[in-house]
């Protein structure tokens, strides 16, 4: 009697263990399948762009495979203003990063550490600015830019892009600042630093990893913006890569299609790799946001 019950129980436990193991395997298989499929789909247009970048252009006729060619890559640097466009993007992105940090770092500090009653509403209001679509403002901002004498100059983008990057940066930097224990700062003030001194000498160095993440994100957002760039800058040599490369196609030479694909891939990969390095940091602070205490 007892033995039977024990055997039944043992059999039942074994069954459950086998089911759990089977479920485990099913989950692993699903994880791998989804991960590989997602990676392939996400990279698909660039993979194909890369493949066709080294193919010979057969002009739509029956294709004959004659091995890879570097002709399209050569054309990218010789027949298109790609290098100039990339330099423009780097300069605009760099300047936007500087302006953004100068505005967002103090703002994030004020929101997280200086405990004002208006701290949370102000923080949320700043974040909501990120939701404002540039397509709502580009017409009026183009007048503002023209009045300031910045029309058809990349300085217009340096001026306007922080309206997009500051809201996100304030939000993320506030998250990074909160991860710095208040005690460290208070100790610095006991040691004779002023509030400002404690921020500059003690807190700022500790949030450097977070600042690096925000630098990469700000640059990525600045490099990717399209609407303002399209409206404010119309001379080919002054455009950033996001409008300049499509403009190359607009000029109408179908032979340049493969060349332009190469350019898109060359821009896409470094940005994704750079952001990938900081992905875990974004994930860690995204939800925290300003002032939760």
């Amino acid at each position, binding site marked *: 009697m007892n033995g039977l019950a024990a055997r039944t129980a043992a059999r039942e436990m074994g069954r459950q263990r086998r089911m759990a193991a089977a479920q485990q395997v099913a*989950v692993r298989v699903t994880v791998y399948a989804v991960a590989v499929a997602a990676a392939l789909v996400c990279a698909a247009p660039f993979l194909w762009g890369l493949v066709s970048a080294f193919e010979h252009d057969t002009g739509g006729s029956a294709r004959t495979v004659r091995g890879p060619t570097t002709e399209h890559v050569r054309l990218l640097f010789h027949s298109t203003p790609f290098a100039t466009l990339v330099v423009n993007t780097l300069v605009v992105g760099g300047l936007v990063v500087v302006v953004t940090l100068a505005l967002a770092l103090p*703002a994030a500090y*004020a929101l997280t550490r200086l405990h004002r009653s208006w701290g949370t509403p102000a923080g949320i209001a*700043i974040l909501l600015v990120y939701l404002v679509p540039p*397509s709502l403002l580009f017409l009026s901002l*183009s007048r*503002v830019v023209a009045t300031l004498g910045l029309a058809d100059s990349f300085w217009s983008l340096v001026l306007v892009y922080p309206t997009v990057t500051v809201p996100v940066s304030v939000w993320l930097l506030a998250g990074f600042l909160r991860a710095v224990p208040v005690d460290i700062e208070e100790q610095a003030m006991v040691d004779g630093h002023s509030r400002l001194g404690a921020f500059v000498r003690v807190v700022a160095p500790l949030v450097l990893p977070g600042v690096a993440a925000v630098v990469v994100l700000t640059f990525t957002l600045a490099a990717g913006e399209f609407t303002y760039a399209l*409206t404010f800058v119309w001379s080919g040599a002054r455009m950033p890569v*996001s409008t300049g490369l499509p403009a190359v196609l607009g000029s109408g030479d179908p032979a340049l299609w493969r060349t332009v694909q190469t350019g898109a891939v060359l821009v896409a990969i470094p940005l994704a790799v750079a952001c990938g390095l900081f992905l875990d940091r974004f994930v860690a602070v995204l*939800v925290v946001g300003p002032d939760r205490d």
Partner: protein
Amino acid sequence: MAVGDRGGDRAGAGQKARLADREGFLAWAFLLPSIVYLTVLVVAPFGLTVAFAFSRSTSEAPSYRFAGLRNFRAIFGDHAFWRSLIDTLALTAVSTVLVVAFGTILANVLLADFRFRRTVRTAVLLPWTTPVALSAISWRWLLGSAGSPVDRILREASLLHGGESPLARAPSAMVSVVAVHVWRLTPLAAVIVMAGLAAIPRGVWDAAHLDGAGFWRRFFGVTLPLTLPVTAVAAVFTAAFTVGDMAVVRVLTGGGPGDSTQVLPALAYLHGVDRGDAGSGAAIALFLFPLFLAGVMVVLRVMRRMGHRP
């Protein structure tokens, strides 16, 4: 010395509070530059957009002349406007639903531990970190060129005949626009949902596990409800970036064939810049504002639920 003094000045310490120590002053000095910057370049230009919408302002005659409801009457009489308004709403709704669904799945997978995780994560970030216009160029080449994988698959499935491309017919062009939006925003939604998942204490899952909840039970009974607020935020951002985007349409289809994929922002650009009629361009762009407000409402509600006190 009362270091943690939240009141600001520390006169009690017998030391004259210096400017650099006064929290009230510092808070203002630190926050004001950002607020002024955003007010001057976002809030004021919005007011200017409203003013333009009621004006007869063109690129030839840029001075302000009040025109009442003239621009609105003109665009209300325009068939292309109504079509693009409806298309924009439908496109945004469909994209948002798909992005949230795919993003939630992707987020759960990206948090799991597997080989080549770094490579997969980098690949998955590509759609979001690449400038939209460049992605659209790549998609145009993948969808629209003869001999591309998509072209061959569609021909194999007899969905495509002769020399046509999916971007040259109205229904499939619209499907392509939706696909590119879903493709480019799913990683962003995944990252936001990942952040929500990471914020759930590990113990909650373990407790559910001990209580005998299986995988699906834990997913639908614990994970999904706990990440709902974050998912709502992901949905709002997805919708905002879809509704306001003109890059995909301008580069991928140019609004065509005909006017079949002309979305609101692209139409505003067409009127306001290409045709130089800033007044009607602004009037069209203003229709994005109610959608922005709806997004704001959702975010505020979520914030309140997450314990912020706006």
